[in-house]
Every structure is written in structure tokens, then in C-alpha cells.
């Protein structure tokens, strides 16, 4: 249904080949396509209007480039303009200044503030900071417990907020606790609220003046539609936000809200959330977002990920082993780790232009993190000999392995079964298998079924 913009523009310019100027007529046609693409991606109507006007100004009279087709030329213009609106370069948190530094998470209900708080805590901890999580949502049932549980799971202390307390008081107290306990970064998770709720917007203002945050991060759902401008504008007007986190980016939303928000608030998007796991937080890359909004796939990210993961030498060696059928459980483990690094298949699919809508690909079972972790633990609990020769793993060994890896014997059975099935399949595929196939991942298809998710 949605052709990507470059295809569409190429259609517009199909008669114009490499010479002359872009004419008014074909620019108008091209701009109509640009406009459609942006609106379909949920960029706000007014933002699109301004955007298209800017492009029109820049395009008129431009010489048609010899190396670029006119379509590509317009794309380039559009992309450059998008990137400049989205903030040119990656922006990080600014936590210098007084200690403890306070980060405040704000946004609509259900946008992902609590999860993002925990993710940021993980990140900050990794950077050597001492974060302190402060639940300040006294309204939504079990919101405080949610953060407490998350904090516990990542080993970050959580302020003992109570629902009867006033959020402003909670935050003030938390600062004192942090000072006394040597925490250097406070992450305040505020309740979700509507921008039109003056009373609750006022509460945020009060928290802000009480704790003077270094960062106020507006958390927005990547699937947000036209209303993103209204909401972001109000939050920014009231609080002067310092940055944006765009959540649920692993889905198939084009994410035009990013542009709307960046435009209306004039603040950088600092992070994107890409999953429910607490390590699924990435820095924001304007160029990638631009491609995504235009429906052209996040090719750069894909390339980067692939580069990161594919260790060429290892891949070649693996291919050798496949040929000689000496693929051991050790290698199996290796592959699992690579898959884990690479991220989920659907994440990767989403980055490839055109691929993300292919139905049959969606039906392929996906590896899930928890599952892979389990498999990893199981293989790690095996002796070197067992890993090389799985046939020797008898009942008592299985029991020992289950114990060692904190799993059940059934889990061990499943791993061994899927490994042996994989061996069989590899034998069948021999000859076909080059290094490339390694990452298409038979392990994925053959992963043990029926265990828990994620």
C-alpha cells in the first residue's frame, strides 16, 4: 500500500533523465509525493505544510545533478531537511552541574515512562553512575510497585514512595536521601497525565521547581498520530523539556511523531526504546529516523548491526565445520550469542526496505531472549567433552546439567533435541550452506517450542 518515497519519486521523474533543471511542474508532483509520504508517517499536517514549503524553495531552479536522478535529488533534499529538523547529530544526556543530578520523566499515560526510567538506570549504572529510582506516580494502581520490581531486577535502589504522599514531597525527600546515600543521579518517574489536565500539569511544575532537574525528558510513543504536536507543545510550554525519548520503536510505526515533536518543541530526541527488555534503549540517530519516516528502511542501522555481529573469520570457520559435520554444541552456543547480539529477527526485518511487510517472514518463529539465555546457561553447564559429543549426555548427566544451569531436565532435553535436529538439517542442507546462511539461522526455526516467552 505504501510505496516507499524513492519509488514514488522515481515514477514522478521517469521522463526526466539527468539533464536540465527541475521544473515547476515536476517539482510540484514530487512535493505531492513527499507530502503524502510524510502524512502517512503521521507527521503533523502543519509541520508537513511548512516542511514542503521549505523543500519547494530549495528545489526550484536546482540544476539536475549528473550523478543523481531527479528523484534521488529530491530525496536528498528531503532527507537533509529532515535530518536538520531532527537534530543533525546524536545528543546525549547532560548531567553535569550540581549533584545529585535529577532526571524527570514526563508524558501522557501509557507512553512508557516507567520502563524508560529503569532502562536509563541500567545505562547510567553501566556508565559508572549511582542512580536512584524515584516513583512519583501515586495515582495509577501499582505504579510504585512496578518501579520497585524493575529496580530490584536491575540492582538499582528505589525510593520507598507511598501512595498517600504528595509527589512533590516524595521528590524532595528523595533528593535528601540521595545526598545522604551518595547516589549521584535521581530518576523521577512521574505519573502519566493529559496535557489538558491543568491541575496535574501544575504538579509537574511544582516538582520541577522543588528539585531543579538537569534533564526533563518527554516520553512519547512512536505510534502517536497528529496530536503529538499539541501534547509536546503543552509539555514544553509548561516545563521547558530538555529532550525526548521515543518509545515502542521496534514496532512497524513509521514514527512521524518524532518530526512533529522535534519541530514543535525544538528539543532533541535523545533515546529510542526498542523493546520491553531493560536493555532495549538506544541513542537516537537523526539520519536513521529520517529514512524510516520516509519509509526507506533503516539501512544504516542494519549495516552497522551486521558489521558488529558478523565476525567474518568465525563465519568462515563455521561454514567449514558445517561441511565437515563437526558442528558441536560449542558452536551452537557461539551462534546463539551472535543471534542475541544481532537482536530479534523482526527488528532486523523492520530495517530492510520492503522486507518488513513480507507476510511469510512474519510467520517464522522468533528467538526470544529469555529462551536463548536459558539455552546458553545449559550449554555452559556442560563439560567440554559433552559439548563435543552430545551422545554421551545420559540421564544422570542431564540431571547434573539442569541443576548447574538452574533449569529443568526437560529444558536440557529440548536443547539437546533441537541441537541434534539442527545437525540433521545441516546434513541435508550440505553444499547449499555458505557462510551467509549462518545468520538466517536454522537455530531460530528449531528453537525449542512451548517454553515461556521473551
Amino acid at each position, binding site marked *: 500500500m505504501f510505496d516507499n518515497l524513492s519509488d514514488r519519486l522515481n515514477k514522478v521523474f521517469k521522463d526526466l533523465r539527468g539533464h536540465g533543471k527541475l521544473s515547476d511542474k515536476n517539482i510540484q508532483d514530487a512535493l505531492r509525493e513527499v507530502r*503524502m509520504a510524510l*502524512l*502517512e*508517517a*503521521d507527521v*503533523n*499536517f502543519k509541520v508537513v505544510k511548512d516542511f514542503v514549503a521549505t523543500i519547494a524553495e530549495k528545489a526550484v531552479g536546482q540544476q539536475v545533478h549528473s550523478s543523481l536522478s531527479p528523484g534521488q535529488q529530491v530525496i536528498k533534499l528531503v532527507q537533509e531537511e529532515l535530518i536538520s529538523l531532527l537534530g543533525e547529530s546524536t545528543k546525549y544526556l547532560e548531567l553535569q552541574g550540581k549533584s545529585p543530578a535529577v532526571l524527570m520523566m514526563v508524558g*501522557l*499515560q*501509557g*507512553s*512508557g515512562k516507567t520502563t524508560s526510567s529503569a532502562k536509563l538506570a541500567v545505562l547510567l549504572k553501566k556508565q559508572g553512575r549511582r542512580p536512584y529510582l524515584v516513583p512519583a506516580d*501515586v*495515582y*495509577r*494502581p*501499582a*505504579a510504585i*510497585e*512496578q*518501579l*520497585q*520490581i*524493575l529496580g530490584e*531486577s536491575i540492582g538499582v535502589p528505589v525510593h520507598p514512595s507511598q*501512595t*498517600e504522599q504528595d509527589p512533590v514531597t516524595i521528590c524532595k525527600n528523595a533528593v535528601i536521601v540521595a545526598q545522604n546515600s551518595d547516589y549521584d543521579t535521581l530518576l523521577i518517574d512521574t*505519573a502519566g497525565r*493529559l*496535557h*489538558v489536565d491543568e*491541575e*496535574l500539569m501544575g504538579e509537574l511544575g511544582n516538582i520541577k521547581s522543588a528539585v531543579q532537574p538537569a534533564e526533563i525528558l518527554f516520553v512519547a*510513543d512512536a*505510534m*502517536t*498520530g*497528529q*496530536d*503529538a504536536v*499539541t*501534547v509536546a*507543545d503543552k509539555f514544553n510550554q509548561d516545563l521547558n523539556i530538555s529532550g525526548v525519548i521515543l518509545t*515502542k520503536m*521496534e*514496532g*512497524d*510505526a*513509521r514514527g512521524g*511523531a518524532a518530526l512533529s515533536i522535534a519541530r514543535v518543541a525544538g528539543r532533541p530526541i535523545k533515546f529510542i526504546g526498542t523493546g*520491553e527488555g531493560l536493555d532495549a534503549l538506544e541513542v537516537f540517530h537523526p539520519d536513521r529516523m529520517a529514512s524510516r519516516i520516509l519509509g526507506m528502511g533503516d539501512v544504516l542501522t542494519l549495516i552497522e548491526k551486521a558489521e558488529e555481529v558478523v565476525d567474518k573469520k568465525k563465519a568462515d570457520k563455521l561454514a567449514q565445520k558445517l561441511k565437515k559435520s563437526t558442528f558441536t554444541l560449542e558452536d551452537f552456543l557461539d551462534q546463539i550469542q551472535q543471534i542475541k547480539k544481532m537482536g530479534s529477527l*523482526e527488528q532486523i526485518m523492520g530495517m530492510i526496505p520492503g522486507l518488513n511487510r513480507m507476510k511469510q517472514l*512474519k*510467520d517464522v*518463529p*522468533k528467538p*526470544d531472549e529469555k529462551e536463548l539465555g536459558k539455552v546458553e546457561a545449559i550449554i555452559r553447564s556442560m563439560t567440554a567433552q559433552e559439548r563435543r559429543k552430545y551422545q554421551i549426555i545420559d540421564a544422570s548427566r542431564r540431571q547434573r546439567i539442569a541443576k548447574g544451569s538452574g533449569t529443568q531436565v526437560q529444558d536440557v532435553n529440548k536443547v539437546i533435541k533441537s541441537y541434534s535436529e539442527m545437525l540433521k538439517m545441516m546434513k541435508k542442507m550440505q553444499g547449499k550452506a555458505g557462510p551467509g546462511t549462518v545468520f538466517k539461522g536454522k537455530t531460530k526455526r528449531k528453537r525449542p517450542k512451548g517454553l*515461556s*516467552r*521473551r
Partner: protein
Amino acid sequence: MLGWFKKKPKKNVQEDSAGRSELAREDIEDDKSESAAQAEDVLISEEENKSVASIAVREHAPETARSKPSEKNGGLFSRLKEQLAKTRNSIVSRVDALFLGKKVIDPELLDELEEILITADLGVGTTHELVESVRAKVDRKELSDPQVLKRILKEKIAGFLHSSDQKAELVMPAKGPFVIMVVGVNGVGKTTTIAKLANKFLKAGQNVILVAADTFRAAAVQQLQIWGERIGVHVVAQKTGADPSSVVFDAFDYAENKNVDVIIVDTAGRLHTKVNLMEELKKIKRVMAKKIPDAPHEVLLVIDATTGQNAVSQARLFSEAVDITGLALTKLDGTAKGGIVVNICRELTIPIRFIGIGEQMDDLRDFNADEFAEALFAEGES
């Protein structure tokens, strides 16, 4: 004063098998005055809760309604009134303002119409179709009165919505509990909507239980349990991390000889693109049918009104997985119009059952296509 909270459990126990005919839909239809009265009750009871610590039913629910008591009788009451005004009878209509001085339909007016529709998240496709259809009429001189134009558009939009309408009663079983499975992406308002729904059923004299099958998100089980305590309905739950299907199984077991009329199942939020999670949802659904034939009778997809074009993809993939039978559109108390549901109705013909207009348990309304279409043209606050 506390009647709003107190009467339910009692009433419910005694009248648990009240005739199903007067269930849900009619009864759920609150009129404004009733809601306003309830709102007042909430406000008052809330204040009491602040001062008197030991009000029976609410003991376990310290965090109650969200507004803190404010100086005036404002707070929740005025907010609710505001919400109702906004979603039901939009006083200032953008279109009216637009059409006021206009005697003829000119291109400028059509452009503004386009803006209104797109800004309401109706999408480029549907918007163009609508605008072009009236433009053609204008060109053929069949249409010149701006007022008529407005009426035509509203009727067209309401028509799309009506055409996927389906009587809610049709999905209900002749006997045995009415099982509702609630699904959707993360944070759209599933759990809250379930609480609101349970409250409505309860008020209609139905015996309701809730099932905490979101065993994934931290504290999701507790969230539902707190709601259960507030409303006074039983919540079947296991620990976080448990197999959601097994929680459902437990719940159906529990319901077996207890004269339960309605079972509402909460599920973990999941992105529609996550194939393994959609598989899990299918499994939960299969388990239900094993225990109660034809269950779930209703699979309710919750859509956040703030969502843009992606909502269609959500509806499509959730439908493919678990056959959605109804929609609930939440967060209409904000400034988002939720126009994307028009496209969902057109493409998938799924009826919209409810709208959510706030965070309290009575902030749920029956969906009304005509009012919704009217509200699309209402001036948003900004």
C-alpha cells in the same frame, strides 16, 4: 454518599443471576446526569477517605481516584463534566466556525476540511476520498451549501462506522459465563478498561470475575488486583511469570460452579509485530475454548485514541491472530480525536463498543457513531 462503592458487592451477591437481557449495553448507557452524580460521590467519598481512615470497602485501596481534593468543588467533578462536554456535545464546532460567514463552498474551505480530517487522524486515503467526493458534487453543481456539505461528510463518516456495527448481544452465549478477552499493544489502557467494564457489569447486577493473565509486566497483576478490590470483584491471579494460559484455566475452574456471569481476561500488552507474542495470545485463546466451548465470546482490542496510522496495522495483525470482535477506544478525554478507527472499521468491519474518557472506573461510555463523527469536527483545545 459512599453508596457508589458500597452497594455493589452486596447487590451483586444477591442478584448475581439477574436476567442477562438487561445486561451490559442498555445498562451501561449512562446519561450525563447520572455520571455527574457519581462524580460527586467519588469526590466526596475521596475526601472522606482522606480524613476517615477506616472506610470499609476502600481499606485496601489507598490510591483511589486520581484528582487530589481541590479548594473548590472542582477537581474531578468539573473535569468529568468537561470531558463529557468534549466528547458528546462539542459546543464549538470548528466546522461551524469555518462555515459561519460562508455562503458558497470554495477551494479554501475544502482545503480546511482536509486539514480537519487529517488532523483527526483519519489518514490521507480516507480524507482524500471524502474531500474528493464532495468536490465532485460541488463541481457538478449538486452541492453549494456549506451546511449541507458538513452534514453529508458527517453522515458519510458515521456511515463507515455504522456499517461495521454489530449488536453486542449477538456475541453472548445463551448460557454459561460471557468470556471477554482484552488485548492490545502496551500502555493503551487494557487493564483500566477492564476495571471500567467490570464496574459496568457489576452495576447491572452481573457477577463478574477478572483474570490477571498479564503475568509479564512488572506489577501488572497487582494493578488488576487493586482495581478488583476497589470495584469489589474477585480477581483470579497467579504470580508474575506464570503461564498466562494456566491463569485462565484456573479462572475457568473457579467460575465453574459459582454462577459467574462475566469473565474478563486481562492480557499483557504486546506489539502486534511480535510474532512469538501473538502466538502466545493464540494459545491463551485456544485454552479458553477447551474449557468453555466458544470462549472467548468477545475479543476486545483496545486502541489508544492518540495513535496514528499504526492503529490499522495493530487491528489487522491482532485480528489475524485472535479474530477481534470489538474495539474499545481509550483516552478520548485528551485532544486526540481517534479518527483512525474509521479506517479500521472500513478495512476490517469490527464494531466499536466503548470509548474511554478518563482514568476512573465510570469513565467508560458506549460508542455512538454519530456523536463520534460530530466530535471529529470539534475544536480541539490547544
